[in-house]
């Protein structure tokens, strides 16, 4: 759905790194290098970004009644 705020396993903050990660991957940089440079060392945190799909953009237009 939307990028989780923290890593499911260790609890480190990863939400704030998602947009930079996404942008740089789109520009063709290798994910491993981007993750290293963002300071994401453990594989639990790395998979949070690597395996994430931003599904929220698909459900975005379904507004709930206020």
């Amino acid at each position: 759905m939307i990028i989780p705020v923290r890593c499911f396993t260790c609890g480190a903050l990863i939400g704030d790194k998602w947009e930079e990660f996404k942008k740089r991957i789109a520009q063709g940089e290798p994910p491993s290098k981007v993750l290293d440079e963002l300071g994401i060392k453990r594989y639990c945190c790395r998979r949070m970004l690597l395996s994430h799909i931003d599904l929220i953009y698909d459900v975005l237009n379904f507004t709930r009644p206020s």
Partner: protein
Amino acid sequence: MEVSILEYSDKYLKALVRNVPLPLINALRRTIIAEVPTMAIDEVLFIDNTSALYDEIIAHRLGLIPLKTDLDRYKMPEEVGCKDITQCREVAVRLILDVEAKDDIRVVYSGDLKSEDPEITPVSDKIPIVILSKGQKIALEAYARLGRGREHIKWSPVSVSVFKYLPKIEVNLELCTYCGECVKACPRKIFSIEGDNIKIGNIINCILCRACEEACPTKAITVSWESDSFVFYIESTGALPSKRIIVEAFKILKNKLLQLQKKVMEATK
């Protein structure tokens, strides 16, 4: 007892601690995770939410945002007998979020949260909270308070608090043939062989996997560890500086021991 710092910044602390009993260092580790208080959002009052995410999901995400914490000015709710944190000023900080996506898709970031206390703010301004499409809006009041990790992990000041034994690698030079199998087997690249000389690099990198022991054809290598020396590592979520976390943990541990002492003294009077 001997301590040497291997890595240190506000976020990380890695230290080599020698001649210290295991229960003591484990007590420190557990106190850091479960007892050192930090600030986190605990109550959220929704005024308006037409986004695609449910109120509960957004409240949960807000709770997980690490907040820079000031331990000196705020008190735990049970200390002052506060039942409803939305009513107690000395206990809770109010943060307000009011965003409307007027003409385009709008990502709502932690930076959009307006805190009534300029020192209690999110650690990072770039954490996405929710994404709004055109015309959607969100308005809420969030209340942050001090809490402890044993109640909910969002109040834990660390993402990592671990220690391991200091590894010890012994090579029996009478059996070693300098074949280089251990160099190939070691995942942490600790060994190196130059001619008739086997070298062991930075022992702290060893993860005690014993791949070298298994790979050695002459069984010349023994991997063990020092039973009273530890490599201690903590990683802060950003709520408190790493040094402050250790200081607070010792304060809490000391208080608990003093209380225990007092109770024992009273009971045996």
